[in-house]
């Protein structure tokens, strides 16, 4: 299902791709109202409804390996932005989504007392009573790869004004924007993967993918559901990873289409941090650790409470759920149901769950914690890896992620992740 890498030397490709993306969006998602890749946009002759502020700080510039982009070089203390006013009549009663690729390789000094003062993509709404509301997303600093940012709003009837903005508020920062896209999303929930549709990658952060002009994540991409008849079987007793055709088929069936960031991994759970996981698998980015979702004070109910928000904001493609690695916590009476629902929650919000279980311990109270996790794993049929010897943790994680990538997400492996890498231990 992966997007085809595009050679940078082919200068016409972005245009073709944009046309393809717009066509795909028109067919598969809501209506695309605006798609701008800045290849032909002139800031001095903007279309009707478009506008700038702090003109001197905005420019359309050539970005190596990306083509023309909008650059905002904010000197600080100003509000440079590009805005597009949408026709309220066209979006009334619909959900509108704004997205853009953003590059923020440097960092900026925070403005004291103004946490909102930073680069962002933003949707603004003024309703019929004149009340203002907005939705926005900000990029992560010091990220040398393109990030996809999105913001969505439900537009009420008789809205006075709806505006999409690419902006930097007060902070001194240099930011690049590309592939500005505004679309309506009339169907609410994204299409199901089981129907043969998935959402395209969201973030161009993998080295192999970064070389190509990956379309914005909101462009749904047709994928052929991966064939599960040739999925290799892995067992906990053999390779320390549990994976087979049944698991792959179930994951494909249950996984909701999502806006997940391509090749992004989030690790949470009472057993986290597991330092032996080391670096994430090649081409994969490890999302920042969420303190309330990790550590011995966490339990599956904490995950049920806090994980939805984290999944929505961080949009990982795979969530590694690290169950308790040592006794100490008291299990709730419905612990197995809780774990089962955490696994289901990941699937519901478009992330593939990978359960990391520590099976062996002689300490008292261990069975009380281990039993429910195993029961949940049995009931939900999900990929698992066993945390046994620390030196094997990274290898097992790598193997499990590769299996998921190939057989659940339906991507051809980009590197030499062949059988040699996946052999039983």
């Amino acid at each position: 299902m992966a997007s085809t890498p595009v050679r940078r030397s082919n200068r016409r490709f972005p245009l073709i791709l944009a046309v393809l993306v717009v066509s795909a969006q028109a067919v598969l998602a809501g209506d695309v109202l605006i798609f701008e890749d800045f290849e032909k946009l002139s800031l001095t002759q903007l279309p009707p409804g478009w506008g700038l502020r702090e003109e001197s700080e905005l420019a359309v510039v050539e970005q190596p390996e990306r083509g023309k982009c909008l650059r905002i070089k904010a000197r600080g203390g100003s509000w440079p932005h590009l805005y597009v006013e949408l026709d309220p009549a066209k979006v009334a009663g619909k959900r509108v989504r704004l997205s853009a690729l953003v590059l923020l390789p440097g960092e900026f000094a925070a403005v004291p007392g103004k946490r909102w003062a930073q680069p962002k993509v933003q949707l603004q709404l003024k309703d019929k009573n004149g009340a203002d509301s907005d939705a926005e997303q900000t990029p992560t600093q010091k990220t040398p790869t393109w990030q996809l940012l999105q913001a969505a709003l439900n537009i009420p009837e008789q809205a006075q004004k709806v505006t999409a903005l690419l902006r930097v508020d007060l902070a001194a920062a240099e930011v690049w924007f590309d592939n500005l896209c505004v679309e309506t999303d009339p169907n609410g929930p994204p299409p199901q993967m089981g129907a043969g549709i998935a959402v395209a990658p969201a973030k161009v952060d993998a080295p192999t993918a970064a070389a190509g002009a990956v379309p914005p994540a909101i462009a749904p991409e047709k994928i052929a559901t991966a064939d599960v008849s040739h999925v290799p079987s892995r067992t906990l007793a053999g390779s320390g990873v549990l994976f087979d055709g049944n698991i792959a088929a179930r994951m494909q069936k249950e996984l909701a289409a999502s806006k997940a960031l391509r090749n992004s991994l989030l690790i949470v759970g009472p057993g986290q941090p597991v330092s032996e996981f080391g670096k994430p698998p090649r081409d994969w980015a490890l999302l920042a650790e969420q303190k309330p979702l990790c550590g011995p004070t966490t339990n599956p109910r904490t995950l049920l409470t806090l994980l939805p928000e984290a999944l929505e904001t961080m949009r990982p493609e795979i969530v590694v759920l690290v169950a308790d690695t040592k006794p100490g916590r008291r299990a709730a009476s419905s612990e197995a149901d809780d774990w089962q629902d955490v696994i289901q929650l990941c699937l519901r919000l478009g992330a593939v769950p990978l359960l990391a279980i520590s099976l062996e311990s002689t300490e008292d109270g261990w069975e009380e914690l281990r039993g429910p996790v195993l029961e949940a794993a049995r009931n939900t049929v999900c990929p698992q890896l066993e945390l046994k010897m620390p030196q094997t943790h990274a290898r097992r994680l790598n193997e499990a992620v590769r299996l998921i990538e190939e057989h659940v997400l339906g991507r051809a492996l980009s590197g030499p992740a062949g059988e040699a890498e996946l052999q039983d231990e």
Partner: protein
Amino acid sequence: MKRACCAALLLLVTAAASRAETAWRPFPDLPQVFFYDDFEGGSESVFEKGRIVKNATTGNSSAYELGATDWSVGDRIVWGVGHLSRLPLKMPGGADPNLISINFMLWSDDPGVLIVKLFHPRGDYEVAQRIQKANLWTPVSVPIMELRNGKFRPEADHACTKLEIQVRPRDKRLPTVYIDNVMICMGNAAQYQQRLQTARNQMAAMARNTARDGFSFSQQYQTALKDALKMAGKRRKPRTVLVTGARLNNDVDLITRLTQAAQKQRAGNFTFVAASAPDAVPVAGLQDLRTLLLYNLQKTEAEMVLLVMQPGDYTTADAVSRGLRVCLERTLTSGAVPVVCLPAVPSDASGDVRQKSDALSSAASAVCAKLAVPWIEPGTVLANAPDSFAGGQLSAAGVERLSVLAVQTLRHMDQYVFGRK
């Protein structure tokens, strides 16, 4: 030494007091009364082997007619068995058995022998006495220390499981015997009559049943819910109600109707919030409820949750029981009060839909009853109103009627669980 004795005594008294505080009683305001049954509650009585009757002898009130035994050969004994173990009662459960008595009214057409018997897990003890007057209601009071079984007799640490009342007739015909107002209490039953009446009136005011009122509630529910809130120890936003499964009808918004119903009932300060996923998609179905309930509870800080069920939620009875139980337990441990609304199905629904709905309702109400969670039976207000359904789903009028009933239920919780007027 004297000081040490005083401290020990004080500790004992405190321990006894705290034990008495936590012990279950049918009337929390009357901790001296362990058990009371006047047989007016219909099927709620714990007595078996006989039947509840209302006749010329008993007047307008109900009494319990003892039934014939199937084990007495020759003797025509009649009996009734009160299963105390079905209640959370521990009796004597630490209280002084010298102070406890079993009291009831008795009517018998035969001046035979009355036998009162108590069972506990390790044995039983009984006392027999002659019935003084036939064909007349007479009070009976038996101090439980009079009950014996050889050298065994009631002790403070016993927890009685059954109370048996038998009458062995003098004549060789089956006697007719009624009992009424059975009370196990500390001391004399007469001293509690007035306070008992007040407590009973309060209980009657809060009790609701699905057939008559459309939803279930009783003093047991109140106690259980209050205990759960106390254990959770969290303060949530007052009168904020999280509503799951709010899409009953594509054209009618349940949240709007609930808000309107609350305003009409002068309960306008209720806030209703539809449960949703982080991407704003409404929560619908049992699976969604399981995965997203805690997230919504944390986001909204609602103090009540209205779980609206639909026939589509049914997979298997076991899945419903387990799924709903998990959701209700999570709600209670989060410090919120759940209220379950059973599925609304038109009376002319197809056999399959009806069957699924009945199975879902039956499984859901059983779980609710077990966890003392109130539930709403929509059929009470929708069955006799033909315009409640259109095209197999709830019409606007139906949603409105259901909203009114739901708001009545929530107001009831507000008054009797959260103690607000």
